[in-house]
């Protein structure tokens, strides 16, 4: 079966986001961009399923600017077989993304779509669930284990307070959580090889999807600033201050 893995180019997780002074968003000029960490876990999981002989082909797809090609090349270097860039300079919301991925799923007929549970820029945590709704497929979100057995997949999910396992009929949607795996680094030979793997470029219009935003960003501001408090001299002073706040055993 084929596996579709959507990947997003985002501000690298080690870079501190800076709000633009005019309040229109976060400054992304001349900062390091990387693959969304949760998507990286998705790519890794797809590769492992291929290594196990469960998957036959991995298609990485990204919706974004020309530079998202780099993110797709990373996925190809890790082990994806081919890539599709749905090129647009607009910020595309999860609902429109899900519509694009639905159209690609209709065309490619994957057995699984593995997405990151959320992108670390807009933190929406929606696209996988929305894609599941639009395809009518089952969803295993926040996965920490994925086991394909015949025509179904068992997904262990990270839920508040523990783990839950659900059995989903294939095709299905999986979204990744942190514990699912540890993504591999692409080796230099694989990075070279990735350069010649196929990468198609499309546009949202090719899939008949209107990407006009439904939600307007009125402004983006800095969160309330925390100012440093006091340094205490020793444990006794700390205990006294904590007790005054009502913190004690």
């Amino acid at each position, binding site marked *: 079966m084929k596996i579709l893995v959507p990947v997003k180019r985002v*501000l690298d*997780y*080690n870079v*501190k986001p800076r*709000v633009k002074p005019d309040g229109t968003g*976060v400054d992304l000029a001349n900062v390091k961009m990387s693959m969304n*960490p*949760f998507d990286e876990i998705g790519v890794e999981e797809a590769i492992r399923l291929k290594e196990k002989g469960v998957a036959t082909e991995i298609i990485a797809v990204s919706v974004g600017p020309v530079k998202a090609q780099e993110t797709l090349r990373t996925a190809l270097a890790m082990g994806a077989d081919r890539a599709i860039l749905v090129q647009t300079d607009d910020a595309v*919301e*999860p*609902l429109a993304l899900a519509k694009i991925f639905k159209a690609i799923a209709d065309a490619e007929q994957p057995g699984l779509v593995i997405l990151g549970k959320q992108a*670390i*820029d*807009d*933190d929406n*945590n*929606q696209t996988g*669930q*929305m*894609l*599941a*709704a639009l395809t*009518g497929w*089952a*969803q295993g*979100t926040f996965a920490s284990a994925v086991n394909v057995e015949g025509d179904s997949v068992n997904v262990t*999910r*990270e*839920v*508040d307070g*523990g*783990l*839950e*396992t*659900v*059995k*989903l009929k294939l095709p299905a949607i999986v979204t990744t959580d*942190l*514990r699912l795996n540890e993504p591999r680094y692409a080796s230099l030979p694989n990075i070279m090889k990735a350069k010649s793997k196929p990468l198609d470029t499309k546009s949202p219009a090719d899939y008949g999807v209107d990407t006009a935003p*439904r*939600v*307007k*960003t009125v402004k*983006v*501001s*800095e*969160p309330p600033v*925390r100012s*440093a*408090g*006091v*340094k*205490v001299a020793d*444990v006794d002073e*700390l*205990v006294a201050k904590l007790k005054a*706040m009502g*913190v*004690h*055993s």
Partner: protein
Amino acid sequence: MKTLVWVEHDGSAVKDATLAAVTAASKLGEVHLLVAGEGVDGVAKAAAQIAGVGKVHVADNAAFGHNLPENVAPLVAELMGSHDAFLAPATTTGKNIAPRVAALLDVMQISEILSVEGPKTFTRPIYAGNAIATVESGDAKLVLTVRGTAFEKAATSGGSGTVEAVSAGSDAGISSFVGAEIAKSERPELTSAKIIVSGGRALGSSEKYEEVIVPLADKLGAALGASRAAVDAGYVPNDYQVGQTGKIVAPQVYFAIGISGAIQHLAGMKDSKTIVAINKDEDAPIFQVADLGLVADLFNAVPELTGKI
């Protein structure tokens, strides 16, 4: 505006996160609740007592027993025919179901709202809380998830909601519940704990984490957390991780012990009411956000603190 709030429950009691969502809903208009599950009469009665609640829709059906979104989302979408906004707590259950509902309604969801600024305008954190976006929905209906730490909890008594059975519901037949391992520890959950004690890389080993961090947490009835560095070093499991790629927490008191305060960690805990930092490096960035800082060797200071608090 008529709102419909997802009641998160464990089969017998309404969970706290629901109460914050009720408060958010009450800022928009009339509050109706949805209790879905199997054998949920008791939950429905408790839900009807929540202050300010109008109608409580009860969908009692085996198909809703484990909150499977494939079965639950169509039910919510149908009820949304007579409501204007759907609100779910931003728990793993709420996050699982709400976007599926939103897509069925062709609505763009607004996730993890922090405040209600107007009938269609909300604030929400982006970049793990490093920026706050004010957003306005252009859709006819609203689908929202509500960050529990951002709203007061509605009172669990004083309400007089009317309970109404919903007959809709069926099993979509594409998913089933296999099992769950819910940690039955006396310890509170990381994301809802009032006090969290977190350890960092400076601990040096999982043995030291056990020896130094755990006793303090036990004494305070606190949840256990860790920095990504401590998780990556294998001191504790990944689900302890607080930070941009881990859990976002906002307890009353957060103890950062041997944690330098990398950006990605700060993003996960800087909304804590009080931050206490213990670190031997007085230049550690954690002290720039700590309300109470102690420059000391954690291996001496923490056991002493545990003994004296």
